[in-house]
């Protein structure tokens, strides 16, 4: 390569062909000469002459030479080709990320450069489209959850739970947190990390033999120091919890109820706002997002009006312009880090706006009818699967049948069974004994509307053969 002999940080001039590889840079050699002249610099390195020489890199970075677009494409495609995507299997894997059908109209809309390449809509007048889209997103989340207000998105489900708990601690000024152990283990880990800078006490309560969170355990430890009780429904085990019972118990002690939920399930299930819940949060991947190794998705957070000022994250509000025309803008920014600094409700700045807008478009495309079907078919297929698993010898189904789209089943030597199924191109689900040692040989399997009767029947047949 011709650059190798060339002393990058010395007194190089412009004449030695250095502009051969400058992808994405528009300045030509003439431009650079002229601009340097305007600035009064001899060469580009002059721009750095005030940096202490001790910290200057003494040679070139040891990274590969730049590639043509053609070569980059080939190289990255090769890596993609080394993965085995879900659709090369008959997959029943969910556990927090779900494979739903995505209408084809979604990708071209959300890929529009005007959305993709804009930033946070600080300047309302030239960002009305983004602001309205986010306002619609906030409205959708409120309609789904039955809550009063939603923010403009957080990072993901796990951090939205952590932010919800922090919010409850600010609201109540108490110092104890109780969570159900049937919350997604990834979310629990994230919560512990987020709280690790403080001296708050976190207690987990167990689940009963039916797999439901144990309300008696909650009764025992709920007290006036408790800020919140966090529950997931459908739980990590897929079970729909009796949220109202928990929230009314919590309320007796002035404890806030936080609910982690799956927004697709809410197309059928009662709105958390009608179950006494104070803060609803969760992950939005299911609303038109790809699985993509788990990111990016987005986190949502919705609450009651009375807690509005303690909410983290951006908010879009409706207002008017100086001609009294409807307009939108970012609002209540006095909660946020760029104004309040160390006293802000959160440090969040960038969020996951594009994913949130994507979910609004998804919800609009699917519409009331499409979403109801999506949830209904998922529910039915998962229960069909369950009923047929029941008939398989050696399979144990000990947990409640009140599940949405996934459930736990047990079989001796589960990991070996999962391996054998994998050889038959079936991904059975997630073995969960790492996170729940008490649920030895437990497998968490899910069905969404993307599964077919044939695929489920095939799974059952294959399983029967393996267990013979």
């Amino acid at each position, binding site marked *: 390569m011709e650059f190798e002999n060339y002393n990058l940080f010395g007194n190089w001039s412009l004449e030695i062909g250095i502009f051969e590889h400058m992808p994405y840079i*528009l300045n030509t050699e003439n431009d650079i000469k002229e601009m340097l002249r305007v600035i009064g610099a001899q060469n580009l390195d002059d721009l750095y002459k005030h940096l202490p020489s001790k910290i200057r890199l003494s040679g070139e970075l040891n990274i590969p030479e730049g590639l043509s677009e053609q070569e980059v494409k080939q*190289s990255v495609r090769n890596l993609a080709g080394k993965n*085995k995507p879900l659709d090369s299997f008959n997959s029943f894997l969910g556990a927090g990320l779900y494979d739903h059908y995505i209408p084809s109209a979604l990708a071209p809309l959300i890929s529009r450069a005007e959305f993709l390449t804009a930033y946070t809509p600080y300047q309302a007048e030239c960002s009305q489209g983004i602001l309205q889209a986010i306002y619609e997103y906030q409205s959708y989340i409120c309609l789904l959850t039955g809550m009063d207000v939603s923010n403009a998105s957080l990072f993901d489900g796990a951090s939205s739970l952590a932010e919800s708990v922090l919010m409850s601690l600010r609201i109540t000024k108490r110092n104890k947190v109780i969570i159900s152990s049937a919350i997604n283990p990834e979310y629990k880990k994230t919560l512990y*990390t987020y709280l690790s800078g403080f001296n708050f006490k976190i207690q987990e309560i167990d689940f009963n033999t039916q797999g439901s969170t144990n309300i008696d355990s909650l009764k025992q430890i709920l007290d006036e120091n408790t800020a919140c009780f966090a529950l997931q429904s459908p739980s990590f085990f897929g079970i729909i919890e009796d949220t109202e019972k928990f929230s009314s118990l919590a309320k007796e002690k002035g404890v806030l109820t936080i609910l982690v939920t799956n927004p697709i399930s809410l197309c059928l299930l009662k709105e958390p706002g009608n179950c006494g819940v104070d803060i609803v949060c969760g992950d939005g991947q299911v609303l038109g997002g790809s699985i993509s190794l788990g990111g990016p998705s987005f986190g949502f957070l919705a609450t009651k009006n009375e807690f509005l000022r303690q909410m983290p994250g951006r908010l879009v509000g409706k207002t008017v312009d100086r001609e009294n025309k409807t307009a939108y803008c970012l609002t209540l920014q006095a909660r946020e880090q760029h104004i309040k600094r160390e006293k802000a409700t959160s440090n969040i700045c960038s969020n996951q706006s594009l994913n949130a807008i994507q979910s609004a478009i998804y919800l609009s495309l699917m519409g009331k009818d499409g979403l109801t079907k999506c949830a209904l078919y998922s529910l039915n297929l998962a229960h069909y699967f369950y009923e047929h698993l029941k008939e398989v010898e050696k399979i144990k189904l000990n947990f409640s049948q009140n599940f949405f789209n996934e459930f736990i089943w047990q079989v001796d030597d589960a990991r070996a069974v999962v391996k054998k199924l994998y050889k038959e191109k079936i*991904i059975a689900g997630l073995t969960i004994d790492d996170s729940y040692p008490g649920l030895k040989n437990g497998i968490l399997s899910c069905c969404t509307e993307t599964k077919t009767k044939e695929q489920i029947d095939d799974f059952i047949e294959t399983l029967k053969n393996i267990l013979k």
Partner: protein
Amino acid sequence: MDNRLIFEKSDSGRKASYIKKPEISLREPKEILPENYLRSNLEFPSLGELEVVRHYTNLSKRNFSLDTNFYPLGSCTMKYNPKINEELSSLEGFLNIHPYQNEACLQGALELIYNLEKLLSEITGMPRFSFQASSGAQGELTGMLMVRKYHKIMKNRKRKVIVPDSSHGTNPATSSMCGYETVVVESNKDGLIDLDKLNKAVDAETAAIMLTNPNTLGLFEENILDVAEIIHRNGGLLYYDGANFNPLLGITTPRLMGFDVIHLNLHKTFSTPHGCGGPGAGAVGVVDKLSDFLPAPVIDKKKNKFYFNYKIKHSIGKVRAFYGNFSVLVRAYAYLLRLGREGVVRVAQNATLNANYIREKLKDDYNVASNKPSMHEVVFSCTKQKEKGAPAFDIAKRLIDYGMHPPTMYFPLIVKEALMVEPTETESRKTLDYFVESMLKINNEITENAQMLHDTPHTTPVKRVDEVRAARNPDLRWHPNK
């Protein structure tokens, strides 16, 4: 133009038919679940596909974006987002993989993350990285929780974090989220860290300093090695907020500057799109002594196989579910492959060149916030213009009429009437000249008729928006019965 909300365009007769009906006998939800678990109604709109397409296409057109307008939003590094990165991040082999598939199914993804880590390690001097954080601020939280745990394990009694008064708001906010008291150190008259004041503020209880370099005035902290020495001498650590790393690619590294833990905003320096505010990615890098504290897992390689390594002795845990914003990582990786070792230096140089060019062309008409040389961005203090009757706010809004997104305004907080201009390396001299001309024109307009500027912008779909009213009477959602 029809500016109604999507909810107001609904027609209850419409039905979607995107998904197939399963070939099993369907039961009503109440036949499967207790009735008191079910909702009675879903107040969602029903629309045809064309209506939805038109609605969101029209919304998209009511915005400025990088692909349509010059977007010199300081501190945000609005550089061109190469299209090939979009194509590659949408490959089926990346989109449709589940983090709980076995590692044999994910080798390509793991290799990509592994390679990206190697590239960033070389570029920053930090031997290990975590890619869990979804943004710069979450990167800060990750890094500072590592700092906290490090001090805990080392049995260091620490309770304070130092930030300069020019710092990003996320720095003090992060410090609070880590349970630290924030100590603000005033900058000197040049806008740089005041070493005397720093010396007075730092003591044995100082856990860390959080710094961005170049700082938010676009200036290189020339005394960075002295800062490092002061902090380290007191047993503290240096946190590098990499929001402004763009002009230093291939020039220096955070490691050489003395930093211990850093984050890089992949959506700034490494060209991934900003998406109306996200998703981004905060890659967190650390020196060896902190690598035992990284979030779990990291990606390692054994016998030519890539795997998730959860064995991290003092790991802080997780800051989000799964492994981070993977498709953002794909884009950053493709970008770095394309640039290569020459390309990254060109980025830094041209970013710095472009900012200094604007500075030079405008410095006689707009005050520059500091006499020190600028790096990738230049901060103007529009006090002269304010005296003439038009604050920075008006200038920013007037730029919209000239077809440009305004610079960051009123930040950093220590500069009066600040406009922070970051052109990035991907803009042409012609674009910079147009910006300069427009700024000069605006300066004349202020002299002639400052009132006209109060009414700007004139050319946008809505005129100046009443933000005070929005905050006073929050209307944050549509209501079905309104």
